[in-house]
């Protein structure tokens, strides 16, 4: 590849400042610039631009807003403003509050609209127009996979935001993409033993699954890990993404002999299906002499808020929770530091979407600093197989084979009597990392290949 495939505005921006006043037109081909720096959008001058691509319209707009808050906080901390947040607890100490490699961090924002097309358009605008060297954010797997592929093609780093489907680091994994968030398999592996302990091993589960990729991988993960615990899956029904009233899917559950309902739903789907399930009195049912229970594999604070009191007593898994360090001690150091600086700035505790975004931004900055270069290939090398601690999840590994983070998974339950709208879940247990680790060639993740890192030149 000798031709560049993206323009490098970052180069030009500073080039333009240097050449301001020059009236002679100079024609550059993309290739000549690429050879100079060796990679796309090399930051020139004293700033570096990051792209925060989050949903700002559509159903996940609030989650995106929370992510954006965390990114802004991360930029502050990287630039040495504010209280420094997790920089003080992070196991790597190379970040010193002087930006990244001495360059002040700037950022641009865009709206993914939770549509893969719009997300790619927004990411391309950041790369082509604003000269962003790294893209991060997002609140769904469809968007994450689409933007990750784009970043691979373009030659910048993608630090995924909230994406839970196996595919992101499974069949659609890419060398330039990294995911800190946990995934469907981990949810299943973390939940199954606790479900067995709480509800017994002799259970019959009925799955309602959102009819798209994330739903499929989550259903598969939960099924296989609960069946391994001795559960029986009596039925699985796919529900359309656009469904708002789930009554006609819930009612048949009453007719079956299932005593567990697993809702493989996220966002609005989950809020509505859970609300409907509780309306139909499923929580009060006794089946086969056992109390009927509902399980929501992937929890989020915002969804819990949307579902209100219906969430009480429902088990699910999370990537992180702001109460981790307070309740489970020093292993999860970093949590309080982050909550403290986020809470002070915004007045409420951060969500897990905010946390993963903040951590991803820090990890990227750290990798660049350790590598001593913004070159995506150097960053990839620095992140692959990197072990770190102090970012709120305990000791964590960025696995080289699939660019997935491995760390403890938090199992939570909706609080019976929440004190306020930010304190809706309680931590039940933390499943240790080795229980959720899987082989890189696990069948649920088969079919893809990282390829080679692309520096865009």
């Amino acid at each position, binding site marked *: 590849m000798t031709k560049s495939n993206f323009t490098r505005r970052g180069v030009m921006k500073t080039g333009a400042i240097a050449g301001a006043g020059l009236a002679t037109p100079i024609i550059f081909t993309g290739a000549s610039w690429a050879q100079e720096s060796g990679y796309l959008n090399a930051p020139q001058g004293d700033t570096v631009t990051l792209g925060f691509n989050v949903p700002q*319209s*559509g*159903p*996940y*707009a*609030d*989650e995106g*807003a929370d992510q954006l808050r965390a990114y802004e906080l991360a930029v502050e901390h990287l630039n040495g403003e504010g209280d420094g947040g997790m920089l003080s607890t992070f196991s790597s100490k190379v970040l010193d509050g002087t930006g990244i490699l001495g360059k002040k961090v700037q950022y641009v924002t865009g709206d993914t609209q939770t549509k893969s097309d719009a997300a790619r358009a927004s990411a391309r605008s950041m790369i082509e127009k604003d000269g962003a060297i790294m893209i991060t954010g997002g609140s769904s797997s469809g968007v994450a996979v689409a933007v990750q592929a784009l970043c691979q093609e373009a030659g910048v780093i993608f630090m995924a935001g909230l994406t839970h489907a196996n595919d992101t680091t499974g069949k659609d994994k890419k060398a330039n993409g990294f995911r800190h968030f946990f995934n469907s398999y981990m949810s299943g592996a973390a939940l199954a033993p606790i479900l067995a302990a709480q509800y017994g091993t002799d259970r019959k589960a009925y799955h309602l699954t959102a*009819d798209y990729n994330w739903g499929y991988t989550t259903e598969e993960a939960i099924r296989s890990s609960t069946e391994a615990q001795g559960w029986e899956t009596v*039925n699985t*029904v*796919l*529900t*359309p993404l*656009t469904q*708002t*009233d789930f*009554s*006609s*899917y819930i*009612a*048949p559950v*009453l*007719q079956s002999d299932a005593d567990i309902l697993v809702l493989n739903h996220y966002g*609005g789907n989950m*809020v*509505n299906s859970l*609300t*409907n399930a509780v*309306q*139909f*009195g499923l929580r*009060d049912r006794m089946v086969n002499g056992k109390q009927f229970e509902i399980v929501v594999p992937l929890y989020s604070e*915002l969804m819990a*808020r*949307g*579902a*209100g*009191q*219906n969430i009480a007593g429902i088990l699910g898994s999370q990537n992180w929770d*702001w*109460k981790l360090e307070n309740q489970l001690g020093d292993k999860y150091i970093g949590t309080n530091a982050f*909550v*403290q600086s986020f*809470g*002070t700035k915004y007045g409420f*505790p951060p969500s897990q979407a905010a946390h993963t975004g903040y951590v991803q931004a820090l990890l990227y900055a750290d990798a660049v600093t350790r590598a001593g270069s913004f070159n995506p290939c150097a960053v990839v090398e620095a992140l692959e197989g990197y072990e770190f601690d102090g970012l709120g999840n305990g000791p964590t590994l960025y696995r080289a084979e699939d660019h997935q983070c491995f760390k403890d998974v938090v199992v939570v339950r909706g609080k019976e009597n929440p004190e*306020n709208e*930010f*304190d809706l879940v309680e931590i039940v247990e933390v499943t240790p990392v080795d229980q959720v680790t899987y082989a890189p060639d696990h069948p649920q993740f088969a079919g893809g290949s990282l390829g080679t890192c692309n520096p865009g030149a």
Partner: protein
Amino acid sequence: MEAIILQILNGLDKGSAYALIALGLTLIFGTLGVVNFAHGALFMLGAFCAVTFSRLIQMSHTVVDETRTDFLGNPLQVDVPYIYDFFGQAAGDVLIDWAVPLSILMAIPVMILIGVIMERGLIRHFYKRPHADQILVTFGLAIVLQEVIKYFYGANPIPTPAPDAFLGSFDFGLMLGFDAGGIVYPYWRLIYFLFAAVIIAGVFAFLQFTTFGMVVRAGMADRETVTLLGIDIDKRFTIMFGIAAAVAGLAGVMYTPINSPNYHMGMDFLVLSFVVVVVGGMGSLPGAVLAGFLLGIIEAFASMAEVLAILPGINQIIIYLVAIVVLLTRPRGLMGRKGVMEE
């Protein structure tokens, strides 16, 4: 058998929402000839009347509780609703608990007012404009209303529960000769169905038995003649728009305990309600109601696991499939009148 009865109940319940929205949409189509893409937004505004009302009566002042701390370790600030101060905690709790039904009292005047303002301020200037312009302006309005709500209430769904008295389900099992627990159905959904039936009956009775209604019906059939008779049909149409807005708004208010309202719930319903109206037949009120219930019931049956096992994915497309079949076999929908919106 129980499963089928349950799905019929579900269908009637879904159908109630469809029918109520479609009814309002048809009133506007029929009386004013306006394609109102903002009708979904009216439904959404109704739902947010309930949210606003419950927030209003929960308006509170903060009291610092030194004995407890918040998540950052500062003294906890506890919110105390004003309503406790006025009525005492017990009565206050009852009022808060009954916020959704009570908010109807607020929603009716508010929605009528919104409808009248919309008609007077905007829609009436578009009666003579092409349908394309009507679509553009009402769609723009829908976006604006939606974004205003998003600005104030956020994008996340807001839980708005029904009064505690209506939590839980009604057991039809014994009543219909099945086992106890065989057919249980949530109280609030039954109420929603009854409520929809009352509203629909009310609108029909109003059009059928009042002079006002008769004039409006005549106006729907032949606007020019009625105007020639010297009746100020415009004024009546304004009121009709207000009523249609109120119907949509009430459908929204009562829907909030079924699904937590969010700012784009109107758009979710918009396309579906257009399909319902057209399947029912343009300009036909009974058609809209019939189509609403019909599509609700068909949708409920299509989502049964037994059906999905034979036809995977049928639940994704059933409404549209039925719409196509109906429109191809009956050119003007189930009960459409000739010449309405056919050009």
